């Protein structure tokens, strides 16, 4: 099902959706969004691309297997979880920079935790779908 219309659309939709997902991730603390939603939107972007160009091409675009995103995400999330221990605080205490940064807003450990969730969700969804798709064809 290689349709030129879909391919053209996917070419432009991929970066736009990825940008949207990053937006959902970063603004998740203040507006609807967050790691889960952002991760799911990003995976949909890649799934759409794989529909248009085939899973193999999407895999090439990703450089690495999506499976590798899972440990990276888990590591970031647990680092955010245990970071307060270094400051002598209980695990999962929120740590924040004093000054907000333009566009993103306040940066703190919760944001990194959300980033970990985001990466894990992308890794999980893409691993499942791509494994099945590669196996089926």
């Amino acid at each position, binding site marked *: 099902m290689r349709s030129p219309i879909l391919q053209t659309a996917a070419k432009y939709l991929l970066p736009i959706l990825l940008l949207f997902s990053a937006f959902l991730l970063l603004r998740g603390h*203040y*507006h*609807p969004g967050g790691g*889960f939603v952002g991760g*799911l939107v990003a995976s949909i972007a890649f799934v759409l691309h794989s529909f248009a160009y085939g899973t193999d091409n999407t895999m090439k675009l990703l450089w690495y297997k999506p499976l590798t995103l899972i440990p990276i995400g888990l590591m970031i999330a647990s680092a955010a979880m245990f970071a307060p221990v270094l400051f002598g605080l209980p695990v999962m205490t929120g740590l924040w920079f004093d000054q907000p940064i333009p566009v993103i807003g306040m940066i703190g450990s919760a944001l990194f935790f959300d980033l970990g969730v985001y990466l894990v*969700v992308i890794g*999980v*969804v893409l691993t*499942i*779908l791509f494994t*099945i798709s590669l196996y089926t064809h």
Partner: protein
Amino acid sequence: MELLLVMLIGVLYAAGVYFILRRSMVRLLLGIMLLGNGTNILIFLLGNITKGKPPIIDADLKVFADIYADPIPQALILTAIVISFGLTSFAIVLLKRVYALIGSDDLDDLNTPEEEDI
């Protein structure tokens, strides 16, 4: 409106139960999904439905000024939705493998090899 939702929960549960009592594995899986949806709505109903008041604090305020939708059921359901995707995908793959092995999605066919062992 709540009564309609209550009815909907009943319908979803009834359909889910009916499906998991079937012999087909695909129906079993769909039944579990339907039960999951029913449960989500049930949990949602627990938190008193509220229209047009999402649990998001206004940009220029620090606490809620108005009433707002209960955030706890929402957090629970969000988790449940994502987990159920993991469950569904694993079950689907399991189903696919079983199908590849025995060439049927009849649950009863799973029993035969075991009985032959005896």
